[in-house]
């Protein structure tokens, strides 16, 4: 809730006030000492991070955290989640409340340069879209002049929306909520004509409606939203661990390594690329300060990028989103990871 944001911000002020400088690698040491990765996620967004009635978190962002835990500890279960609203997320990371933020967060210049944050990569390429009720009879976003629009506070969505309507010379009424639950409730209650968010979120929110078929997602995508894990500035060692955890999953998909076949490949593969990823030869985890089998643990316990995608947001999930931009570069998408060698 909102008061938590204020508490986080106050905590940040306090942290900035009293803390002394930290050395590089401090985050990894601290994580190892406490025995788990503290990861900031959403308060509940299907496909990205959501907890079930037993408190088990699932989602593409959650798997990103679990991959880092697998790389550090060899155990994907050694991760604790902090649910955060869009407004709270950066403060929680800046103040050291969490070790990494994996909360469908858009990589922008302001955030990268002004907030003391580092984006470790892109685990989902998204774009902003519009969800409207079918009764409205709207076919395109250009017909939305004068509409009341529900938004979540503290997102790039708020700015993109303003830019889009300004560039088209159209008027709108923004109704801004803290959490996506309230946003979708207000949309359902008819407070607004349109709900705007990243397209992946719109599909996730749509299946939460009482009648999902009563609403449609308009074809327009009005912005670029590269979403990815974020860490604090000033600790490059930790930054690299998060970045290479993501790269390991992408490389595994590219090399055809999955959680199902990795043990067989470990025994039989003669492909040097595969053997390097599994940690049988090459530099292994040495430079990252990780065990030799760090990438093996990620793929074995969490899966490669394709498994993670399909399980959470793709064919194997209720959302059924196709890979699109998120396909590997070799398959016509733009997901591309530097090689492990």
């Amino acid at each position: 809730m909102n008061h938590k944001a204020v508490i986080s911000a106050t905590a940040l002020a306090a942290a900035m006030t009293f803390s002394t400088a930290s050395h590089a690698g401090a985050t990894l040491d601290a994580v190892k000492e406490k025995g788990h990765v503290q990861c900031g996620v959403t308060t509940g967004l299907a496909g990205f991070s959501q907890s079930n009635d037993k408190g088990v978190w699932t989602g593409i962002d959650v798997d990103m955290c679990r991959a880092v835990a697998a790389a550090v500890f060899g155990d994907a279960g050694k991760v604790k989640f902090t649910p955060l609203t869009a407004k709270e997320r950066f403060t929680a990371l800046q103040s050291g409340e969490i070790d990494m933020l994996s909360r469908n967060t858009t990589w922008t210049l302001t955030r990268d340069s002004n907030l003391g944050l580092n984006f470790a990569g892109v685990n989902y390429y998204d774009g902003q879209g519009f969800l409207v009720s079918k009764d409205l009879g709207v076919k395109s976003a250009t017909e939305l002049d004068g509409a009341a629009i529900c938004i979540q506070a503290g997102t790039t969505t708020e700015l993109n929306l303003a830019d889009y309507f300004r560039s088209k010379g159209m008027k709108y009424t923004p109704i801004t909520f803290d959490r996506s639950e309230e946003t979708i409730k207000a949309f359902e209650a008819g407070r607004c004509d349109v709900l705007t968010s990243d397209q992946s979120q719109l599909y996730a929110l749509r299946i939460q409606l009482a009648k999902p078929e009563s609403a449609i997602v308009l074809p327009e995508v009005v912005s670029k939203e590269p979403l990815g894990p974020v860490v604090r500035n000033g600790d490059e060692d930790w930054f690299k661990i998060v970045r290479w955890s993501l790269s390991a999953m992408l490389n595994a998909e590219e090399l055809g390594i999955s959680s199902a076949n990795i043990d067989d490949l470990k025994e039989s593969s003669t492909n040097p690329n595969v053997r390097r990823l599994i940690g049988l030869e090459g530099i292994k985890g040495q430079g990252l300060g990780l065990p030799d089998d760090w990438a093996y643990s990620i793929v074995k316990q969490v899966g490669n990028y394709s498994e993670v995608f399909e399980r959470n947001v793709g064919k194997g999930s209720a959302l059924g989103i196709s890979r699109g931009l998120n396909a590997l570069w070799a398959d016509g998408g733009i997901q591309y990871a530097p090689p492990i060698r």
Partner: protein
Amino acid sequence: MPMDNQDQMPSRPPLWNDPDKRALIFQVIVLAAVFAFFAYIFSNTLHNLEKRGISTGFDFLNNEAGFGILMSLIPYDETYTFGRTFLVGLLNTLLVSFLGIILATILGFIIGVARLSNNWLIAKIATVYIETFRNIPLLLQILFWYFAMLPLLPHPRQSVNFSDAFFLNSRGLYLPAPVFESAFLWVLIALFVAIIAVVFLVRWAHKRQAATGQPFHTFWVSLAILVTLPAVAYVVTGMPLNWNLPELKGFNFRGGMTIIPELAALLLALSIYTAAFIAEIVRSGIQAVSHGQTEAAYALGLRPAKTLQLVIIPQAMRVIIPQLTSQYLNLTKNSSLAAAVGYPDLVAVFAGTTLNQTGQAVEIIFMTMMVYLTISLLISLFMNWYNNKMALVER
């Protein structure tokens, strides 16, 4: 001889044995320590922020905000600055606090008096009201009013229509907006004159009653003056007031004034919740006035209503006002729960969206805290002044 006298004076004690000087020295040391502590905090904060690559300073207030705000009392759109979003949020907070204090006070006094009513039903209803609303967390009440009311309201195209001027739908209550022509100034002047006339009339009536004992129908005569003078001015200057009616264009109504459901829900919840506390304060204030006062008033032949107005309430006010102050402060601070239902108050707009878009947490939280501190101190000052005015004047 003066010289001799001086020789016999005891020599001045050393500094540490002189209690006055010693106290002064300690105070200077404490003050210096406090200053040094805050200077350390300040420089350390700046240093750490810089080290983490978080920019500092208040320059961000001049940057373009780039996001829209649902409701603004002053002109605002995306092209205004972050500094402007501060003002927009501040005014929205002041609006809901001001209206909330007035509504809560009126409602609280009515319920408080009703609780002491001799009518069993009225007294019980007031008791149930107090016990219900006082004991449910405010945040839940705000969410309840918002999400319980919204689905009941129709879509803009099926609005509830009152004589083509007022429309009620899920986007709010649409009212005609007054458009003033320049000649309307005369109507305002007439109203001002009427108010002064009423003040003099009331004074004169008091004096006359004190001198002759004859009552005067002050209320009705005042009302007549207040209505007639501006009305005459309005007609004479040629009715210089137009109404901008809301009309359905596209999805929503354009023109007119809107009371948004977020404001209504927040205001309702704040007033109803705080009124429950005020009612108890009013009850305790009235019960603090000894029953002998009532009996004395009845013995003098005053009716129950006059007794309440002239004898009980003025004495009860001395107990009520100091406690009322803290309820007003609570209401103002509680208005920061607005973000839950999307009402754009200071915390939602400035300590929320603006903080997130700029990342200047330390500066923004500092400014926001200062605003609430200032508002609270101002309310306290005003209420203390009012309390002194109402306090028992001892002769």
